[in-house]
């Protein structure tokens, strides 16, 4: 072979090797983070850690029960707000593909997806915290619900668009009214896609801190009143990680470990569902 050809082939192989190396080196930081956080956190987690309140600085031990309970409540309330709203909007978009309202609505969903989470926090502050007069878990839930919406709407719309038209037409031919066609035929057929969208949105907001800073605000005590400030896992991690105390860092490592495992499991679970049901998101 001529040297020019050899050179070109060599260059091609070189580039291929470079691509492979670069592609796989992306994974390295993730693996480092996973290993580091699990190593630092797993030793802190025990029964005591899960059911106790954080102790003041200087005392050993203490747990994160308030943050766990708070996270659950805030996410549950956010889901209650966002899931029906998001699914209904997704239905509208898939049923009215070309109407003018659908165009604007779709545009707004796109915009909503790109809005930085901190901006949503500011808006929730003015919509709920100021009128209600105090920081509250419900305002945090509302902020998180706004962040869930675009994901749920998009996945619902895309799932329903993939269903064949014949399904809808057959149901209409039987004389079923519109709402029963949607609720009894279309939704059950697309439920797996919709559910995985919902789970993905929960996974996305479970670790969100920025919108909660000026809404749920955090609370060192266990609280179940959604109109009062409430602690949540990401807030606790942020507050304790930036504090100068080692005891609090320990709590934050344990909390990070729990949050990380929770979020990753949700994501992996969603992936498995999506693959099993052949849903495209």
């Amino acid at each position, binding site marked *: 072979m001529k040297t020019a050809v050899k050179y070109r082939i060599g260059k091609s192989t070189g580039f291929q090797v470079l691509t492979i190396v670069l592609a796989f080196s992306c994974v390295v930081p993730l693996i480092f983070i996973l290993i580091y956080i699990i190593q630092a956190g797993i030793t802190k987690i025990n029964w005591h850690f899960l059911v106790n309140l954080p102790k003041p600085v200087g005392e050993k031990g203490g747990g994160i029960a308030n943050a766990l309970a708070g996270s659950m409540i805030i996410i549950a309330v956010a889901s209650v707000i966002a899931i029906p709203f998001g699914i209904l909007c997704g239905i509208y978009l898939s049923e009215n593909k070309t109407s003018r309202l659908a165009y604007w609505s779709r545009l707004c969903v796109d915009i909503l997806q790109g809005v930085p989470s901190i*901006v949503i926090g500011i808006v929730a502050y003015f919509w709920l915290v100021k009128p209600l007069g105090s920081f509250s878990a419900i305002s945090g839930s509302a902020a998180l619900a706004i962040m869930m919406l675009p994901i749920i709407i998009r996945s619902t719309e895309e799932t329903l668009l993939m269903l064949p038209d014949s399904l809808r037409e057959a149901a209409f031919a039987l004389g079923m009214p519109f709402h029963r066609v949607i609720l009894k035929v279309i939704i059950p057929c697309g439920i797996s896609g919709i559910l995985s969208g919902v789970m993905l949105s929960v996974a996305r907001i479970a670790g969100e801190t920025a919108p909660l800073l000026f809404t749920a605000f955090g609370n060192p005590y266990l609280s179940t009143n959604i109109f009062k400030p409430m602690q949540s896992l990401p807030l606790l991690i942020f507050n304790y990680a930036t504090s100068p105390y080692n005891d609090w860092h320990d709590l934050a490592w344990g909390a990070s470990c729990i949050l990380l495992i929770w979020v990753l499991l949700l994501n992996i679970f969603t992936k498995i569902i999506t693959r099993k049901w052949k849903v495209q998101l």
Partner: protein
Amino acid sequence: METSIDNNLITRSENILERVITSTKIRDAVKGIKRIKRSHRQIRAENVFRRTLVIVALATVVLVLGIMLTLIIQSTLSIKTTGFSYLWGKTWDPVRDIFGAYPFLLGTLLTSFLALFISIPFSFAVAIFLGEYYPKGWLPNLLKNTVELIAAVPSVIYGFWGLAVLVPIVRVFETKIGVEPVGVGIFTASLILAIMVIPYAASLGQSMIKMVPSNLKEAAYSLGATRWEVIRSVILPYTKSGLFAGILLSLGRALGETMAVTMVIGNTSLIPKSIFAPGNTMASVIANEFTEADHPVYLSALIELGLVLFLVTVVINMIGKRLTKQFTN
């Protein structure tokens, strides 16, 4: 005698028959009314359902308009008092009521573009690897899923990890190259951001590269091109706008990212002297100072930062979405 009984019997049975017939008529009528009522109810339910759908769709539009209006209304105070000097005023001093956002604009731009600069080779490598070299198989699949998991890790965890692991490493690095070893700063924030934004450009780029028509590639191969030459002179030019859209999506993410940056950037309102100096981004200033803002102009100035951030990310995302749509059609 017998005939009378017979007659009696006949009239009675006729009576009974008549009654039966009328009762079935009534029943039918009742049934009919019920059916009409039911279909009325169904039609009403149908209309209510349709109307709910329209209201919900309208509500998303109202929501976004509401967000924008809230930001504009709440920041008018600051727009009025500081005017245009807000954007390039070099000092941010809430105590003396001087609000210039230039240090934060600079910080945001520096961190975001540095992060993009670091992450682009990696995300393009993933995109080319998954889109062209190895589109199928378990190993590429694993890589794809793992890269997507990078986006799933909460940003506060990146921040905490950065604070505990990356900051000391950067400090050592800074002593070696002879700058002031602070550890926290623009450079550290960019490193963390670079990791966080890899998946966005990678996953979009990958799907774009998969869409390159194979006859184009085959034509290039038949002319004797090597794989690298095909990638450089067919695939990359063809997917140019798609890859650019991926970069824009990453940029949008990087600009709005708050927690991880806040935790490692050092939080000073001074103009950063070099990329190793501590600074602040727009999002991190809001996160740090919003609950401390004690007078209306201060609060309003912070919201104006939020407004700028909102507008910039919206424009960037819209351009990105437009490009993607153009490419896929």
